[in-house]
């Protein structure tokens, strides 16, 4: 079984767990998610964007890099993009992941919680979600292209799709 390769993997920076990659106009960034969420925020007119690999829904009183939790990653991305001139009003979001790979996902259902948290927070900020591929039992490889704002999604054994 093989997955379709969307791009040369060696040349694309990859966001590990809790990482956020801010892209320039010519950049691509990728990440692999299971129950985590790959979130892109993109300003189409300026061609500026960011890809986050969010692990958990809430920070509560916990520490960690801003990309680790949905409620810290999203405000951080918005602020950093605003500092680059990409104001919140011009941003659109795409989200992917939130899988439950091992049967039911257990009583905690982290993938479901992650997806719900990201969607709620984006809604509160008024950032429209223009593409999503969530849930299911499989992991996903995501490639974000900041020239186009496209999010390419690969799932093992399935044709690649583009959001």
């Amino acid at each position, binding site marked *: *079984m*093989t*997955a379709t390769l969307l791009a040369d*993997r060696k040349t694309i920076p*990859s966001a*590990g*767990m*809790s*990482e956020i990659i801010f892209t320039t106009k010519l950049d691509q960034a990728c990440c*692999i*998610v*299971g*129950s*985590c969420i790959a979130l892109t925020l993109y300003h189409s007119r300026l061609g500026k964007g960011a890809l986050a690999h969010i*692990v*958990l829904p809430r920070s509560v009183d*916990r*520490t*960690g*890099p801003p990309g*680790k939790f949905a409620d810290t990653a999203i405000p951080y991305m918005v602020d950093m993009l605003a500092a680059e001139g990409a104001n919140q009003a011009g941003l659109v979001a795409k989200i992917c992941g939130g*899988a439950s*790979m*091992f*049967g039911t996902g*257990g*009583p*905690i259902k*982290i*993938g479901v919680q992650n997806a719900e948290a990201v969607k709620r927070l984006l809604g509160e900020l008024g950032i429209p979600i223009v593409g999503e591929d969530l849930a299911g*039992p*499989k*992991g*996903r*490889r995501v490639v974000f292209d900041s020239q186009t704002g496209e999010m390419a999604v690969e799932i*093992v*054994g399935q044709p690649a799709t583009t959001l």
Partner: protein
Amino acid sequence: MKEVSVIDIQKPSMDQLFSAATEDASKAMCRWTNGKITLSLEEVVEVTLEEVSQEMEIGEELLTMVVHCLEGELGGQLILTFDEQNGRQLAASLLGREVGTDSEWSALEQSALCETGNILSGAYMKVLTEAIDAKLVPSAPYFMQDYGASILHQAVAAQAMFSDRVLICRTNFQREGESLKWNVFFVPTEDLLEKIEHTVNASE
């Protein structure tokens, strides 16, 4: 690896506890594969979430895996992962056939790997059950193929919900002396991890 029996452990550390489980799993694997496959525990480490992929050296490669969910009073998952080539070779060896060339795994090949997971998880859980005095029953196995990183991340996410650090048992698989890129991920739930830590701390 030093020989450790759970019965002999008077004050088991986390390393000793998982060494004993791995040792029994290795014996079972050795019998199942006619002496070809063994495994040993390299170390038990706690790492931050951000370090997990790098620590386990798992990235974008596709892995084949057998997943067991733990049933009983305490939960968790035990996941055995294989690289494609060596997983195929194991299945072929167990079935007495040539290595399969179809892109899809046959039902028989999947069954051979699932049975391998049964044997390994049964031995592993038996030792832990005896050590912590709690019933851990592996579910029927199921076969999956996915990106290595997504498997690893999903496995540690349950621990990440309640802790900023995750427990990793680094395990070395060998076939006739040659290292294999296989892994066992044992991912206890919060309750099970507490029970394990309580057992270790109480005996120290």
